């Protein structure tokens, strides 16, 4: 597999905001995160068992939740669809092991690592910033760490994953929308800038 890091990431050129300009939110790109789309039936014992054997934990079967173990995570995207994420460059190995284990089953594993980049937004203002352009109910009673959802932010399609109670969010967005969304987020965060 080609070395992705040679090509640069979608937000390499995003020099704004400079580090520390916002007191209550931090922007960061997590480039080259490994991403696999895993499809199979959650009603099939065999599919769930094999997936658990490879990943080391059970795929989440509750809608819009995430299972995490070390550098592996599985995000529920649909009743027969998950996104498995891992550290850059590790996805090929995971994909190969899943493929081999799922031979003969009605299942699919697709490497979509280049299909989206990840914007990490962390800090006490992160929720308020997202609420300016996202139709999801992000109230801490409703959307908590370990939750994920596919939705829209400022009309761009995103997968949102809340990591912790800071709150920290990971936003998965298509490369072609990344710079637009980054610029929108920086603008939405303007009121939290220092002086």
């Amino acid at each position, binding site marked *: 597999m080609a070395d992705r890091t040679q090509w640069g990431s979608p937000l390499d050129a995003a020099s704004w905001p400079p580090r520390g300009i916002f007191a209550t939110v931090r922007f960061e790109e997590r480039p080259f995160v490994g991403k696999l789309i895993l499809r199979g039936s959650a009603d099939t014992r065999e599919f769930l068992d094999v997936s658990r054997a490879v990943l080391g934990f059970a795929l989440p079967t509750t809608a819009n939740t995430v299972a995490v173990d070390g550098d592996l995570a599985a995000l529920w995207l649909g009743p027969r669809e998950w996104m498995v994420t891992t550290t850059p460059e590790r996805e090929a190995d995971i994909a190969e092991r899943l493929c081999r284990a799922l031979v003969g089953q009605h299942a699919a594993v697709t490497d979509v690592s280049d299909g989206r980049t990840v914007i990490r937004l962390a800090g006490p203002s992160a929720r308020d910033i997202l609420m300016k352009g996202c*139709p999801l109910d992000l109230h801490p009673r409703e959307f908590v760490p370990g939750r994920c959802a596919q939705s829209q932010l400022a009309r761009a399609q995103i997968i949102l994953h809340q990591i912790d109670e800071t709150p920290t969010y990971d936003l998965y967005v298509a490369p072609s929308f990344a710079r637009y969304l980054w610029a929108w987020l920086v603008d939405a965060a303007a009121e939290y800038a220092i002086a």
Partner: protein
Amino acid sequence: MLRIPCPYCGPRDETEFAYGGEAHIARPQNPATTTDADWADFLFMRKNPKGRHRERWMHARGCRQWFNVERDTVTHQIVTVYRMGEPPPETPR
């Protein structure tokens, strides 16, 4: 703006959904022996009622699943939602 309860994800804004027209329209089993009139009926004729309407929606920006909605076309009230392949629930008028 409608708030549509996806049977998988729960209530979401209408902007996340795509509309799929009237539900429960079965494709003729044998197109070769179907008359032009019946075929046209299948392709083009829809109820367009004033009131309760069973229709298909897809959670396009979410879990991407198709499902059925019973909606009042006058009040926009969503009476019930149910998954593909499930029979329409009995709904009180």
